[in-house]
């Protein structure tokens, strides 16, 4: 157990570095972009010189980069992400208000993608090449289709023609279906390809042969024995997958007019709302690293060999 604690401690320190790096990168990117940030924020809306001066001093742009960066880090340590310039609200409030719909969307899409992929893989692994090829081609198609296009197609058929789901908004289950399917489709192909490869390997293993020899039915061999093994690489993949889903939410939330952190990010980038953009990047980095620690932890639970090596 101390080994696990040591491992966790090491990972947390590393995670802190990752978050720090992400925060620095976001801060630098937003500050080093071309053009006067103050004039860009204000746009060509006929700002008065007094306003330009006021905004410059509010955002600290009258100070050198190093000072701004130090102040930014100082606030960050205290958990203060600053004030959104567009929305006139603390960034932490903006983000907490929109985090839940995005988490809901990403998790639903993840579960959906995994479930569909499992069914596809279990039914097609090692089966007739024709079936495999068709399913495999479909997976490739869905993975490579852009999310906004799939979203519009789904909307056209299931919302505009047949009024099954709302075209925009909708915080309930009804409003979650189409966005979750859109987001899940891109991931399903990846999962099922990995799962199928794993399953096909596992079905060749001696334990599968033993199970068959005991008279276990083919379905049971696949679901009870082989699938468990094939899931391990998918688990490794899921850390990356959740990150991808979070970024995919930017597109999906915009297409479906859904609330969420992705929409906040899209508007903030357009309006050069520096505190909001850096805030979202930091929060995403925190989530991403935490999920990856969790996944690695689970990996150690599932595969005891990893625990013993370092002990």
């Amino acid at each position, binding site marked *: 157990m101390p080994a696990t604690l040591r491992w966790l401690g090491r990972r947390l320190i590393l995670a802190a570095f990752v978050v720090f790096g992400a925060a620095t990168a976001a801060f630098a990117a937003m500050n080093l972009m071309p053009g*006067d940030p103050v004039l*860009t924020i204000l746009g060509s809306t*006929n700002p008065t010189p007094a306003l330009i001066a*006021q905004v410059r001093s509010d955002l600290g742009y009258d100070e050198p980069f190093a000072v701004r960066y130090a102040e930014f880090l100082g606030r960050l340590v205290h958990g203060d992400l600053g004030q959104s310039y567009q*929305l006139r609200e603390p960034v932490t409030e903006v983000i907490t208000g929109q985090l839940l719909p995005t988490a809901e969307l990403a998790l639903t899409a993840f579960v959906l993608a995994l479930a569909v992929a499992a069914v596809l893989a279990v039914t097609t692994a090692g089966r007739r090449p024709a079936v495999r090829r068709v399913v495999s081609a479909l997976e490739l198609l869905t993975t490579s289709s852009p999310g906004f296009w799939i979203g519009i197609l789904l*909307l*056209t058929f299931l919302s505009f023609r047949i009024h099954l789901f*709302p075209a925009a*908004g909708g915080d309930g289950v009804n409003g979650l279906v189409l966005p979750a399917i859109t987001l899940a489709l891109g991931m399903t192909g990846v999962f099922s390809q990995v799962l199928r490869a794993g399953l096909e390997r596992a079905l060749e293993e001696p334990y599968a042969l033993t199970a068959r020899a005991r008279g276990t039915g083919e379905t049971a061999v696949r679901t009870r024995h082989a699938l468990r093994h094939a899931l391990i690489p998918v688990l490794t993949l899921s850390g990356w997958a959740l990150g991808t889903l979070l970024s995919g939410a930017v597109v999906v939330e915009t297409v479906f007019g859904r609330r*969420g952190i992705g929409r906040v990010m899209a508007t903030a980038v357009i309006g050069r709302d520096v505190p909001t953009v850096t805030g979202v990047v930091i929060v995403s980095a925190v989530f991403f690293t935490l999920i990856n620690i969790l996944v690695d932890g689970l990996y150690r639970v599932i595969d005891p060999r990893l625990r013993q090596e370092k002990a």
Partner: protein
Amino acid sequence: MHNHTAGSVIALCAVLLAGTAACSSSDGDSKTATGKPVSGGTLTYALTQEPDCLDPAVSPMQATAIVNRNIFDSLVSLDSDGKFHPALAEKWAVSPDGTTYTFTLKKGVVFHDGTPFDATAVKATLDHVVDPKTKSYYAASLISVYRGAKVVDASTVEVKIAAPTAPFLQALSTAYLGIQSPKALTRDAAQQCQSPVGTGPFQVSAWEKKSSIKLTRNPAYAWAPPTAGHTGPALLDGLTFQFIPENSARLGALTSGQVNGVDGVQPADVAQVKGSGSLQLLRADSPGTAYSLYLNAKKAPFSDEKVRIAFQRSLNLDVLIKSVYFGQYARAWSPLSPTTLGYDPSTVGTWAYDPTLSNKLLDEAGWATRDSEGYRTKDGKRLSLYWPYTPLFATDSRTILGQGIQADAKKVGIDLKYTSVDVGQLQKDVLTGASDLYSTSYVRAEPDILRFFFASDQTADKGGGNAFHFSAPDVDGWLKAATGSSDDAVRKTNYANVQKYVLEHALVVPTYVPSYLAGVSKKVHDVKFDPSAYPVFYDAWLEH
């Protein structure tokens, strides 16, 4: 940021000027057999953008002006003829020197929070707008001449301005200068943004960020301006603004009956809306400036007027605008759009497509030789022009229009570098004069917008729109005379002079007149447009 601009007061349909803007009833047969307005129901209207902050003094966005017009009344209201009518001010008088406005206020008006409306509220609102702490993006610039207000008694307020300024009343008539509850103004900025308090026909009931703003009827409303179609409370129980940024999703929500109306109908989708039995198209041409290309005369090759004219005449805009916008947007001849007061109709046809003239002028200007790609050269240098744009602001298929313009310019041997850049880079290239062209449109129901773009004291560092430091004493003189005069005829002549000058010297190439295109269900009646071509919902009603 184009299209971030001045809304205006509730007014009659904008049909009167140049016949281009239209009432809600003109494109569909919205007058049904029933015809009689009925009360009740909630109208859901989908907007392309979500307001950033609902404090009218703060936000410059078009979406904010549309929502706020329902929440706020202004001191005066403007009709589409350019005439001012009483609104919260019963009457007003201007001092002989033109610098003091004395407003006599309506009695019995109450804010949504119960605070009575009086002179204190007017002073508090105007002071709030110009307070640097408010960080007004737009409203403060509209009343930059404001020098303070004096409460004479409860229903009389004296407003001082720095110099006689004809556009001052127009500024006061916009939703951006809507009068706010002095009690509400003492709250913090976040609350002020979330739920501002006015005297308008609707009040804010909920704002769910990234989803919708819900307004409910103000039952006490009994002070509608004479420019409105009825008196008393609004006919709708509620008004919900939903935000759907994706064009096809927004249109789909309308065609499938999930919302009652949408804005931002794309020109390509107009036929679908018009062809539908259950929908109607509402349109109003926006006042202000047409989507225009401003030419940088401070730098070669555009410092040579012949090159500027050659470029201006090389564009076959009639054909381009028609094909890019499916005949929905009008081709522009003046930088001022036709629904703006002071628009000079005699500009039409004065700079028609003439590639022969373009070629002749370019030859004369010394760009007589051509390189292997067919572009003109002079002393071994190609005739290249840099025109940066940012796709984020290229609404209305402006990118396609830009490519068409680029192709036309190529035909006479001009290498137009129409380049996609980041918004910060765009700002930098334009403000430092590195670019040869700059393109934008601006909505404002006041010809004073010409001053913003062409007065020598309106350079970008002073908050103006004269990006390329254009300066001509004649133009400055005309603009000054127009701003200082309250005589419409004098203003018109001076603004006409400015329009002729900038076209004759090819300092600007107007392209098309932006329009506000809305699609609404035929069950929706009497949605009208204010002078800024924004929809007004006070008279609107739903057929049950």
